[in-house]
């Protein structure tokens, strides 16, 4: 009698446990098939050789990675070429500067939105979110018009004596302008969320204990909104590293980033192993960033 009921009990939960795994199955299948497996394939392609008619042939050869640093001459001699390294550095730099500018803009704006009365606050949050719902390519295109020859900004500068027919396009500055513009909602929203959670009496307490606005900002507000700032920084930095549209449209052919370089190799360039090697490099940079942040936040959790 007692044995029987014990048996039933172990069977009861077992049936329940299967259901969650069943629910997760489709997610694992599609991610496994469309993401995880292909990433292993990229890794394999990055060490393959270039096919005669585009594509690739299986093999183990680090030509793709070598090409990032060296230029192989006709006779097989290796010559150091910094051009691709410069692209990698420019990518990291531009993504970093984008993140920095977004942060500088987002913290005060998010703070201001959080301090608004209820109804106006939700309208402002909606207004920050709205551009994110619009096509990215159109948002970049808008900046092409603004900065392009005869656009509003060059015209404005012409009033102050800039030469006629000025174009502000096709340089890193143009790329940066479009990147900040496209990614900033991703920074404002998480920062706003953590500022809004901030207990207002903490600010009052800081002032009560003789802290001025600057001290309060530095020692109370910023530390307490750090989680929002960190997640906003990730949300901006990671896609900025992989930016494709901005460098292609704003930077022109010369001012490439890793994303546009990869795009080129799988499009016109037709050097798949090299493109795959760049893609792997990009992936590794992103992973390193995420791991460093994860480790730091884990460390912080331990300290607290």
């Amino acid at each position: 009698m007692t044995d029987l009921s014990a048996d039933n009990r172990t069977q009861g939960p077992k049936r329940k446990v299967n259901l969650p795994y069943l629910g997760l199955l489709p997610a694992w299948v599609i991610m496994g098939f469309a993401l995880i497996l292909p990433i292993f394939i990229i890794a394999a392609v990055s060490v393959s050789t270039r096919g005669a008619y585009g594509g690739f042939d299986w093999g183990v050869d680090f030509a793709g990675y070598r090409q990032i640093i060296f230029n192989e001459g006709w006779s097989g001699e290796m010559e150091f070429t910094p051009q691709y390294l410069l692209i990698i550095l420019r990518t990291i730099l531009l993504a970093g500067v984008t993140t920095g500018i977004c942060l500088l803009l987002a913290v005060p704006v998010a703070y201001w939105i959080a301090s608004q009365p209820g109804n106006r606050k939700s309208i402002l949050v909606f207004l920050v979110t709205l551009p994110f719902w619009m096509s990215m390519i159109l948002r970049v295109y808008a900046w092409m018009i603004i900065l392009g020859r005869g656009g509003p900004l060059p015209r404005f500068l012409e009033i102050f004596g800039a030469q006629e027919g000025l174009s502000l396009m096709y340089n890193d500055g143009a790329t940066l302008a479009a990147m900040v513009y496209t990614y900033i909602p991703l920074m404002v929203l998480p920062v706003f969320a953590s500022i809004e959670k901030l207990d207002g009496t903490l600010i009052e307490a800081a002032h009560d204990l003789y802290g001025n606005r600057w001290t309060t900002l530095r020692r109370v507000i910023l530390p307490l909104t750090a989680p929002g700032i960190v997640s906003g920084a990730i949300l901006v930095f990671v896609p900025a590293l992989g930016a494709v549209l901005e460098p292609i449209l704003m930077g022109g052919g010369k001012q490439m980033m890793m994303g546009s370089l990869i795009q080129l190799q799988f499009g016109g360039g037709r050097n798949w192993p090299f493109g795959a090697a760049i893609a792997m490099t990009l992936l590794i940079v992103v992973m390193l960033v995420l791991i460093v942040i994860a480790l730091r936040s884990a460390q912080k959790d331990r300290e607290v």
Partner: protein
Amino acid sequence: MFRKCSFIDNRPALYVLNEHPVGKRIVMISKRCLNFGDSQMSQQTAVGVNDVSKKFGSYQALRSVNFDIRENEFFTMLGPSGCGKTTLLRMMAGFETPDTGSIQLHHQNIVDIPPHKRRVNTVFQSYALFPHMTLSQNVAFGLENLGWGQAKIEARVGEMLERVHMQDFASRKPAQLSGGQRQRIALARALAPEPKVLLLDEPLSALDLKLRQAMRDELRSLQRDTGITFVFVTHDQEEALDMSDRIAVLGSGEVQQIGTPSKVYEEPANKFVADFIGETNFLDVDVLESSGTSATIRTPFGQVITVPCASAVPHGKATLSIRPEKLNLGDQVEGVDFEAKVVKKHYLGGYTHYLLAVGGAEIRASRRNASRAGDDFPIGDNVHVGFVENSARVLVK
């Protein structure tokens, strides 16, 4: 071969074997009938908790708990937070599974029966009224799942809403209700399917004081009218004392005492119960002699007296529990008496609470302000204090 030949209260009681091969008439009495016969004295068991233990991680929430809840009673599980009372209630509802032991509903082990197949309903602490359904849809929900006919459901919903005086709100949504109204709907919803047992998880805790008092009366009369067994969980001793037929006092995962409200208050089984229910003074005493029901002790003030005790207390150190209101002051003194000094006093209108110092101990006494004169003992004065022996109680230290 068998033929039912008599009924007692609509229950098949006696089975008579008519044509036995031997030819004698043998009367077989069913087991259930025997139980029923018993229950003429002690009522039948509605819920049986047998040897139930539960661990959450490394935290032992329940340690082999045993008790029976009788049919038609208002049974309260009372204890501080974390004592395991809610876990027990959730086990009866089917949301938790005991690690060991069994929960029985009318003598049937229900541990393996999922919540939706148990004829038990719950009034949740948060009420858990479905926010997307109207009140009548909420009340009808259980009946629909039981497969009742449409007409029958409508009649029952109307009846239940009327019973909790909410018939005019039938098509409202829960968000439009006050706390007390939500409470009534939660009750109506849980009672509509006529459960064998109604489980109530601190249903009054979200209400304000005045409403809580009114709801106590309402709950009590609802239980009497329906005759359904109520199992009520609370941490509020006043609620428990006021409403219950019997109270199970739980502490640190164990049943400390089960009994009627006056029993657990007047005759606490141990220090935990004496301390948790009501206020009391604990005095260190020496046990000189003890039987199972009373003990002869020496008080800190030197007197030797004989007072009741919960169980056999060993010789040596023990604790004497005496409630503040059992200590009489001044002219009201009877029984054992001694002198004490007034240290503090709190005037509360109907009562005055005194903090008294005696023989290095501090004791609290509460005095009903029956007449203005003679009720005022100034701080610093000595006062005559006394208590009747059988209003105190010796507990194991």
